[in-house]
């Protein structure tokens, strides 16, 4: 109890320090200032909770000891996550690349019908794109503000935030389909006299699919709103970071080949059949270069009917949420001359027709975008 009381005091001081730090960050652009205020409000609420817990008369009650400890841990995690993510990002936000990336993300949000407050987006990553969905923060690779071909990964990260906000509609509702699919597969396997190892594997796949669903869904949302450019970006990323992940999954990520198929299914359902066929041809070329071959278990791990149903489900979910697919996005709705999503689509076309000349064109587009955003 003494330790908990002491550490609550420490937490309160850390939270207060972050409050002062955030208060000292002034002169931000309106989009970043709105984000600063959102994070300040979250930290203020956290501080109120910390003070309430520190003053709780039941802090020493044996029956509540562990519950209070759990509460402390969530508050501690909140303070740490705010410090390492949003406060860190806002402290460095004066860098022009961060303002550019946040402006790009904000513009994209308008174009695709994203209904929530746009996230802060900073070019401060030591690795690939990632999002802290709970804190509305996207981090991109450090040089991404100078290039266009990788930017569609922003739509995938925005997809993660959409999934978090709408997890019941975009995740839980599909769990029943997964359960049904694998229940049928298990029944069939038993009828066919398959052994316990096969049944156990199907049960594991049923569970894995619920983990993989997040990445599949984020990919499909990105394909829905960004169109073929996301398919091309996916091939480029897999080519640049190829590993045995082409056909093998991790705990959180399905195999790249399955993700690519998921993206393709969405593109075809939106009428981008020609582009989907071209992307498929490039993917096959990449797989051939890598020397990989499709393992015989692939069709069991990633059943086509289940992927088909997921693509239909995600497209319907996007429409219900008011997200706008690339082909339906009107130019000029954001009151600006540059439509970022369509620019990224165009960028991939330009790159493919003139790879050598693309760099100069890309540099001009980035320069125009900066001017558009007043940077």
């Amino acid at each position, binding site marked *: 109890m003494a330790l908990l009381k002491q550490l609550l005091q420490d937490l309160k001081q850390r939270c207060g320090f972050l409050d002062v730090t955030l208060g000292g960050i002034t002169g931000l652009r309106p989009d970043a200032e709105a984000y600063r205020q959102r994070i300040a409000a979250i930290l203020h609420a956290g501080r109120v909770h910390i003070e309430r817990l520190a003053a709780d008369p*039941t802090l020493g009650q044996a029956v509540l000891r562990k*519950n209070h400890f759990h*509460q402390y841990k969530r508050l501690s*995690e909140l303070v740490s996550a705010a410090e390492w993510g949003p406060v860190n990002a806002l402290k460095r936000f004066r860098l022009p690349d961060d303002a550019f990336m946040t402006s790009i993300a904000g513009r994209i949000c308008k174009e695709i019908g994203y209904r929530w407050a746009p996230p802060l987006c900073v070019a401060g990553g030591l690795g690939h794109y990632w999002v*802290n969905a709970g804190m509305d923060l996207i981090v991109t690779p450090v040089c991404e503000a100078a290039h266009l071909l990788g930017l569609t990964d922003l739509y995938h990260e925005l997809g993660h935030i959409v999934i978090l906000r709408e997890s019941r509609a975009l995740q839980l509702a599909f769990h*029943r389909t997964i359960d049904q699919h694998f229940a049928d597969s298990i029944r069939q396997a038993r009828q066919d006299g398959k052994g316990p190892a096969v049944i156990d594997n199907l049960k594991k796949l049923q569970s894995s699919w619920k983990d993989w669903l997040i990445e599949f869904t984020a990919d499909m949302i990105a394909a829905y709103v960004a169109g073929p450019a996301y398919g091309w970006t996916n091939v480029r990323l897999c080519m640049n970071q190829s590993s045995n992940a082409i056909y093998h999954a991790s705990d959180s990520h399905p195999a790249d080949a399955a993700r690519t198929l998921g993206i393709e299914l969405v593109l075809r359902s939106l009428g981008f059949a020609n582009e989907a066929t071209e992307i498929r041809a490039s993917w096959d070329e990449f797989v051939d270069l890598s020397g990989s071959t499709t393992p015989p278990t692939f069709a069991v791990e990633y059943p086509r009917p289940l992927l088909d149903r997921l693509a239909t489900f995600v497209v319907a979910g996007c429409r219900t949420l008011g997200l706008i697919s690339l082909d339906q996005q009107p130019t000029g709705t954001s009151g600006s001359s540059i439509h970022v999503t369509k620019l990224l689509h165009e960028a991939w076309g330009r790159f493919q027709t003139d790879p050598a000349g693309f760099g100069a064109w890309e540099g001009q587009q980035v320069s125009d975008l900066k001017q558009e955003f007043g940077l």
Partner: protein
Amino acid sequence: MGDMSSLSYEYTVNASFAEDVNKWLVAVKKAALGVELDANAGGDPLEEARRGLAAAVESTLSRLEAMEGAKEETGGASAEVPEDVVRRVEAKHRSDLAWFLEDLRNAQSALLRGDTLGPRELQALDEITDVADASASECFRRLWRR
């Protein structure tokens, strides 16, 4: 696309569940101790806690019963239980799952009726909050202490 995005999603979902069930159990325990609860804008805080906890237990039961093969999962559960929480409870109670499910059912009934929870029911609810905390904590650690 990175693992960080998946992990941060997983953490947010798991931490939110852990926070909610813990908050509701604290309210139920405090009421049993005769401690006055903080009033909230939504109405009776004890009633809200009982309903919230009962819904979380119902969803957990539904998932565990489906795993046990006793019933087909209906998909109509009223609360979201993280996948990892269900797996951890199932792993912990592999040898006595039927007994644990019975304790959870009794806890859910007592919560819905407004009855006092017995030691076994309280223990079952404590286990859910313990597992939810462990799940959120491990996620956070993987997210930031790699």
